[in-house]
């Protein structure tokens, strides 16, 4: 059997077995170890443990539990309540204003946290019930929360970009900065979409009633702006020491987590219960991700042994004779399709090592070191889309666990589509104008 056939067989077996609903890490790990034993006999049994040792050396992944912990402390101690209230009051008079406020809330949370879990949890506990109570359309609400929370992996800090940096051997600092402007651009596009859609169809997102707006005087409004100090403080205490090189990436995430705990203590909301839930959920979520990454690294090691990188390069460059841009577009499309059905983190770990070396050799009119930074941002947006597209996506999965029963699975699935459209538009813009991503890191690090 040719190596390409083995690779295709491994992918399709994985896909079929996933459908049985067994735990994702088990399915991926099983396919990997069986393939290794079958291909290399007794030489293949150490492969899985080798992956565990490799994972140990992925030092920057230590940021993962820190960000998860920070996210849970924030949502459990309801630190974002005041923030939500601020946006609520300021954006109430605009069509779809509360949805727009939710997106902006997500932007702030994304600037404090590197995962989409935090935004998801806060969105589902604070924004969701409030928006439903005010007769916002169900699909609009779930779409806003899913799309908004996915910004968490694009706006710095970002754990997905950390993972990418490990794989592409690119500097994390530059990648994070590269994600900032595209992240804000995407948020702006979401806002425009919501504003336009609710302007045309006011029943989707009704304006806050006049009497309710009159209750809040201007001074109160200004005082509410103070809530914005918290995310600003957390963001700055993390990013300033990191960009200046005073603390390492991982150490910065610890500082961020501790400042969040400090804020919760200061507001007298850091109860024993908050501590217990946050600590336990951090273990649960971190273990879920780490075991999937472990299994995916094993899978990737088999691909490595098969020489899959060269096979893909041979297929795209020699056999199909595609141009650099065609290859890039094809890679994004294939990733989007795989992201629908397979686990998104596993895809990142398995597919990125195959694509990154190829991207580095493509002539797209950018310097070699910048291509990988730019591609990291493209990759992250593709990953965001994969989080949202059914049938498999973390945001769909988490959303289902967190929403009240009146929101049906159908609503959750359908709600994602307009936002996926906006994200694809952002992806195209970024491909056409790489400067959107590259300008900031160049300005900061280029001197």
């Amino acid at each position, binding site marked *: 059997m040719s190596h390409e056939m083995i690779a295709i067989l491994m992918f399709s077996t994985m896909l079929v077995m996933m459908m049985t609903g067994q735990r994702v890490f088990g399915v991926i790990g*099983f396919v990997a170890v069986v393939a290794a034993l079958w291909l290399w006999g007794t030489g293949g*049994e150490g492969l899985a443990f080798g992956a565990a040792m490799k994972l140990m050396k992925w030092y920057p992944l230590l940021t993962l539990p820190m960000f998860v912990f920070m996210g849970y402390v924030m949502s459990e101690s309801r630190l974002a309540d005041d923030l939500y209230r601020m946006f609520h009051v300021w954006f109430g008079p605009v069509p779809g204003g509360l949805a727009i406020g939710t997106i902006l809330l997500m932007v702030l949370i994304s600037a404090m946290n590197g995962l989409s879990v935090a935004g998801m949890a806060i969105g589902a506990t604070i924004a969701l019930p409030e928006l439903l109570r005010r007769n916002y359309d169900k699909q609009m609400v779930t779409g806003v929360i899913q799309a908004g929370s996915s910004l968490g992996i694009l706006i710095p800090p970002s754990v997905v970009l950390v993972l990418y940096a490990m794989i592409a051997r690119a500097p994390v600092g530059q990648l994070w900065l590269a994600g900032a402007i595209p992240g804000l651009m995407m948020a702006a596009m979401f806002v425009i979409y919501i504003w336009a859609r609710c302007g045309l169809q006011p029943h989707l997102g009704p304006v806050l009633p006049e009497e309710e707006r009159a209750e809040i005087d201007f001074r109160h409004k200004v005082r509410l702006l103070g809530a914005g100090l918290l995310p600003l403080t957390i963001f700055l205490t993390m990013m300033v020491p990191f960009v200046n090189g005073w603390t390492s990436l991982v*150490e910065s995430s610890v500082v961020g987590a501790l400042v969040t705990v400090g804020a919760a203590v200061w507001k007298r909301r850091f109860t024993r219960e908050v501590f217990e839930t946050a600590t336990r959920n951090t273990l649960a979520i971190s273990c879920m991700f780490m075991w999937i990454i472990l299994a995916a690294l094993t899978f990737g090691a088999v691909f490595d042994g098969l020489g899959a990188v060269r096979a893909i390069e041979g297929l795209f460059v020699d056999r199909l004779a595609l141009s650099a841009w065609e290859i890039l577009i094809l890679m994004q499309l294939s990733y989007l399709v795989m992201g629908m059905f397979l686990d998104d983190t596993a895809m990142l770990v398995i597919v990125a090592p195959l694509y990154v070396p190829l991207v580095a050799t493509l002539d797209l009119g950018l310097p070699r070191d910048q291509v990988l930074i730019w591609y990291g941002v493209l990759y992250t947006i593709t990953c965001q889309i994969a989080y949202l597209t059914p049938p498999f996506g973390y945001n769909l999965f988490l959303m289902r666990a967190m929403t009240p029963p009146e929101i049906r699975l159908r609503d959750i699935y359908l709600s994602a589509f307009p936002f996926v459209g906006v994200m694809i538009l952002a992806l195209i813009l970024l491909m056409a104008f790489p400067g959107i991503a590259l300008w900031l890191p160049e300005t900061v690090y280029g001197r």
Partner: protein
Amino acid sequence: MPRWAIAYVRVVDGLNRRVGRFAMYLLFVLMGILLWSSATKIGSDLGLPVNPSLWTLEMAQFVMVAYYILGGPYSMQIGSHVRMDLLYGDWSPARKAWFDAFTIVLVLVFLSVLVYGAIDSTAYSIQYNERNPSAWRPYLWPIKVVMCAGFLLMLLQSVSLFLRDIAAIRGVEI
């Protein structure tokens, strides 16, 4: 269900719960190590009589590995490992149990190979006193022993989940 099965599930679940609860708090050990690391680094930059620690980076890696490997069984127990639930999500509990009872074999095979490789590698580390090639040069066998133990506990937990599924099919609960 036979008495031994019930006893097995009780013992293994209880053990993994305790180990998992212990691992849960390693998060704060991790924070402490990393804070110490940046404190000594900043201290020496400012000219204070401290040297930047050599051991923190590797120690943090070891603690992280212990965190997720020892915490794995407990997190499986509380059901936080993600599944592809396109079909699975809509099934009845009985049907879920039937499928799980068969597909748990996937998890068992993966974990068995992991344990096998881990024991092999640990034996090598102990025999040759393997050290990490770095400035601190820590021995590698202690962390490998922890990894072996964690993978083994994960295996035990999977068997426990299998027994629970069998019980669910029979209509009883353990």
